[in-house]
């Protein structure tokens, strides 16, 4: 009775068997793999949480201590040694703004200029250019206090001999963040594909016209991101400023070239924080909140700028 009818159940059986095998192969992941996967995912998540916990703890602590002292007076009142309820950050805020204004003025032309030279003009096959490149990477890793000593020896005293003025502090901070700006700008410039350079040069543009009209416009978002991050680093620096004359206690509005001294936000925060009175510590915490808000805003703006305007090739 061999025929199609008799073959049917056997076929069905075979199909069912094959399906069961496939299902088993798809489902039975070895138990060891499942556990390992879970453990690694957990460890990686833990790493993220530790990183976030630091920021979170800082925010909670600063808000818990400083929210009582938060008021507009912080921005308008000068510091005081005796009356914490009237003390503020006005000279420090003005000092910090002037400091970063100087940093921006110095770092944009010099940083972009150096980056353009290294990317567009320097022959990277020559050993001295490679030496420059390696050393810029190294400079970015030098501790900031060393820059403070450099500023003291060469800018405040020494060859420039500017004295303990705000402009000297500004220049010191600018030198500190210059490698960051150069590195970020070089990356942005390098991201512009060679086909753009060639297309421009093939139309009879000079190298400068190509840089000015093609390379710079295409790399500005990346460069701006680097500059903002560098400035926010300069804004938070304390150590080098202590060496180049950021006086801790200043009750007047500082000016860039006055020899009377100047102050900056992180220095002023430090000054309030080391005092024994509770009220001054609350004031320090309030200053930390102000700085955190400003720095987070700047960094977020930098990230937004990069995502919004960066050219995708």
């Amino acid at each position: 009775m061999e025929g199609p009818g008799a073959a049917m159940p056997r076929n069905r059986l075979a199909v069912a068997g094959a399906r069961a095998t496939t299902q088993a192969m798809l489902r039975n992941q070895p138990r060891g793999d499942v556990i390992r996967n879970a453990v690694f995912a957990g460890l990686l998540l833990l790493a993220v949480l530790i990183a976030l916990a630091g920021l979170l703890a800082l925010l909670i602590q600063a808000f818990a201590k400083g929210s009582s002292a938060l008021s507009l007076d912080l921005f308008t009142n000068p510091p005081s040694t005796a009356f914490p309820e009237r003390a503020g950050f006005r000279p420090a805020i003005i000092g910090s703004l002037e400091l970063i204004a100087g940093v921006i003025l110095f770092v944009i032309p010099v940083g972009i200029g150096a980056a353009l030279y290294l990317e567009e003009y320097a022959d990277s096959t020559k050993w001295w250019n490679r030496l420059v490149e390696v050393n810029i990477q190294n400079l970015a890793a030098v501790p900031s206090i060393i820059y403070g000593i450099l500023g003291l020896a060469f800018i405040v005293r020494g060859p420039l001999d500017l004295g303990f003025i705000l402009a000297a502090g500004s220049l010191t901070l600018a030198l500190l963040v210059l490698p960051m700006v150069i590195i970020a700008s070089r990356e942005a410039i390098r991201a512009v594909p060679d086909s753009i350079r060639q297309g421009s040069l093939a139309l009879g543009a000079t190298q400068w016209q190509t840089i000015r009209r093609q390379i710079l416009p295409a790399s500005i978002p990346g460069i701006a991101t680097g500059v903002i991050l560098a400035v926010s680093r300069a804004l938070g620096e304390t150590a080098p400023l202590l060496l180049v004359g950021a006086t801790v206690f200043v009750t007047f509005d500082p000016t860039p070239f006055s020899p009377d001294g100047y102050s900056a936000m992180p220095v002023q925060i430090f000054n309030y924080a080391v005092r024994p009175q509770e009220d001054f510590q609350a004031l320090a915490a309030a200053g930390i909140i102000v700085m955190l808000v400003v720095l987070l805003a700047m960094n977020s703006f930098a990230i937004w700028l990069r995502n919004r305007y960066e050219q995708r090739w």
Partner: protein
Amino acid sequence: MATDESRAETGREAREAAAERAAIAVRPEFRSPSGGKKEKVFELNGVDVLYSGVTAVKGISLDIQRKDVTAMIGPSGCGKSTLLRCFNRMNDLIPGAEVRGELLYHGEDLYGPNVDPVQVRKLIGMVFQKPNPFPKSIYDNVAFGPRILGNKEGLEETVERALRRAALWDEVKDRLDDNAFGLSGGQQQRLCIARCIAVEPDTILMDEPCSALDPISTGKIEDLMIELKEEFSIVIVTHNMQQAARVSDRTAFLMVELDADEQNRWGRLVEYDETEKIFTNPADKRTEDYVSGKVG
């Protein structure tokens, strides 16, 4: 004896096949009248190109005629792009590149001591393998060349004229301010051609301009080349033999040559003649093998 005969046999077959293909491909109405002596744009006498001392192209001698489409064909690595980049001194941009021999442009030594490569590139434009529009609007792409040359008067008319001549105007006239990256690959390449002709060059070099494009876009660019040769001399490098047969008046065939111990390789000009002759009745066996598809 027997082998010779069979080789001759396949050779003839190949020739006939190639002739048939060329007969379909070649459009006689676009051929320039043969016989009449044309002005020379480029004259090459024993040109060598070296990269960091290593020879890439050796001993090239040929004349390129005005208002012709001249094609350079050959297998990969035969140096046809390298040679093309000598014509507008783009090789100057590669560190270690060196051009030897004589390369005359309208009788002037292109590599002479007083020649400014920037000026050379204003006269001799280039279209690249991969469309490379600038990250700007369509209008600014075309206006870039005239602007850097300082021709700001009548810029709008110049842009429109260039886009019309590149057969792109109708497709982009309503969105001149849009970013050029939004165009299709074929449109981008025609934009690059428009950008090139907006500076009114004398010669246009094209380095495999259709290799990144689909057949329809390729057809449009080929039609464009045939129109553009009314005004410009065109030199095109192509991988595609049919393309050379379709658009060019004269064809140069280059090949890779090895030295005795097969350590070094360089490009060598095998044959240079009317395209019709190259594809139907080449003088050199190697050309014949290549155009008939036996090698390469």
